[in-house]
């Protein structure tokens, strides 16, 4: 069962992947350094499928698309936050990383809580407390992009259908 990694407000893209790692194009390496500046334990203990739960303005700062790539490479299956910064939000969808908006969510989870996420129906559940909360629904075209694994596979698939 995926577990929650809970963070506060204003987690920046510098926090997600520091500038010193950007030059070398290596997603696995970015995954190994994800969240390093604010949580050195994260990359050592994160398991495939884990979910990040955060406060307001997740992904603020630099436009580096290496940020959602790093989280995906680390195994993160979704980010649920009270709000997102705009460039990170677009980048995450383009990379096929589900980003769900849910006011108040950071208070409903503790680090390590088991999480269930249902993208299609638009809810997440804290298995420990049994509480299920609705997330703001994603439009169909964004769900399609996420299901394809990102904007590029989505576009390629569409182009193949046309052919």
């Amino acid at each position, binding site marked *: 069962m995926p577990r929650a990694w809970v963070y506060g*407000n*204003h987690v*920046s893209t*510098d*926090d997600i992947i*520091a*500038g*010193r790692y*950007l*030059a*070398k*194009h290596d997603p696995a390496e970015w995954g190994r350094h994800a969240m*390093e*500046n*604010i949580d050195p334990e994260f990359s050592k203990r994160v398991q495939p499928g884990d979910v990040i739960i955060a406060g*307001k*303005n997740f992904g*603020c*700062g*630099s*436009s*580096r*698309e*290496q940020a959602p790539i790093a989280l995906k490479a680390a195994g993160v299956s979704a980010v649920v936050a009270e*709000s997102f*910064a*705009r*460039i990170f939000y*677009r*980048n995450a969808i*383009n*990379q096929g990383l589900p980003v769900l908006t849910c006011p108040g969510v950071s208070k409903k989870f503790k680090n390590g809580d088991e999480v269930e996420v249902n993208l299609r129906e638009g809810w997440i559940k804290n298995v420990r407390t049994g509480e299920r909360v609705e997330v703001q629904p994603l439009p169909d075209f964004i769900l399609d992009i996420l299901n394809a694994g*990102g*904007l*590029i596979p989505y*576009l*390629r698939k569409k*182009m193949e259908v046309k052919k």
Partner: protein
Amino acid sequence: MTITEKILARAAGKREVSPGEIVDVKVDFAMMHDLTGPLTVESFEKIGAKKVWDPARLVITFDHQTPASSIDAAKNHILLREFARKHRIVHFYDMFEGICHQVLPEKGFALPGKVVIGADSHTVTYGALGCFATGVGSTDMAAILATGKIWLRVPESVRVKVEGALRPPVMSKDLILHIIGDFGMDGATYQAVEFTGKCISRMSIDGRLTVCNMVVEMGAKNGIIEPDRKTLDWLRGRAKERFEVVKSDPDAEYRDERIYDASRLEPQVACPHSVDNVKSVREVEGKEIDQAFIGTCTNGRLEDLKMAARIVKGKRVSRNVRFIVVPASAEVYRKALDSGILKILVDAGALVESPGCGACMGCHIGVLGPGEVSISASNRNFRGRQGSPDSEIYLASPATVAASAIEGKIVDPRDYYA
């Protein structure tokens, strides 16, 4: 409609647009640099695109890691040079020109009424010249390279009216730090921030670029200032093509309006580790520093270096401080050289580096070690931004940075300005 809505409407081929609407807009100029470019090229090739939609409308700059700081950085430069050659990119600026956000205005790409999209968050800077400009990631940029278009949500507009006049050595940086402290780091998320009022009219283009540069630190999609005489004078001889001045209608709708009085503003500082943790310099005076940095797309312009020179002239910076100065562009560098500004700075003990992003992002010139404190005329003080996660960054104006460099601790520049 507001100026932002009017520009987006034109670019979308519509008579009218309203906030919240998703529009497909034509991009007038696109930009990528040595750190976001390689990922863009990779995505561009994965899409299966064969050619850049218009090789005269993509600008490529090298600025983040110049001259190359590592083998990986050098490889990125090689990759982009090859891409520029293969696609016959007309406006390719190798590492001789400086920071994208100074180079694009100087070379006349940031023009009133245009849509400029860059693969860098500080692309918002160009709004100071009356265009719509915002940042995107590498995949979005790849889609622009392939199609010349991007979908955007029309932002609500917030009007920020600044009355009065800044009293030197209080600078435009102090003003925007104060405004960010007031709005908060997400206070303008997804919004257009339109600056107006007497203080903005009086402000130089350098100052306006600083103000618009930092709107992304409060989450804004774009910052914008209506073009005036000063804008047109500045653009004369620079503009790459014809443009049309766009202004907000008198009955344009704003989601919010905030009014500030610049005359009463004191020097400001954003304390670790968030840009909205803003205090007056007086409140943190005496904090010891290891590094003082002036440069970046926020404060590496001529006006900034001039102010720093005025403050350190005839003095010597503290032995305990590395005083790093990085002109934002080759043009700024040359002007600062010819006017004697660089000599004053060097005589005072400054390390003047070649144009580029410098110490701002912690992977090159002036990386901070554990426990070190930096006062920086840049735009972000996130934990570890300039190096070790155990270092601290205080953001301030070039005046405050220069005065602090002399003393080895944070001081109010008003005591050093004659």
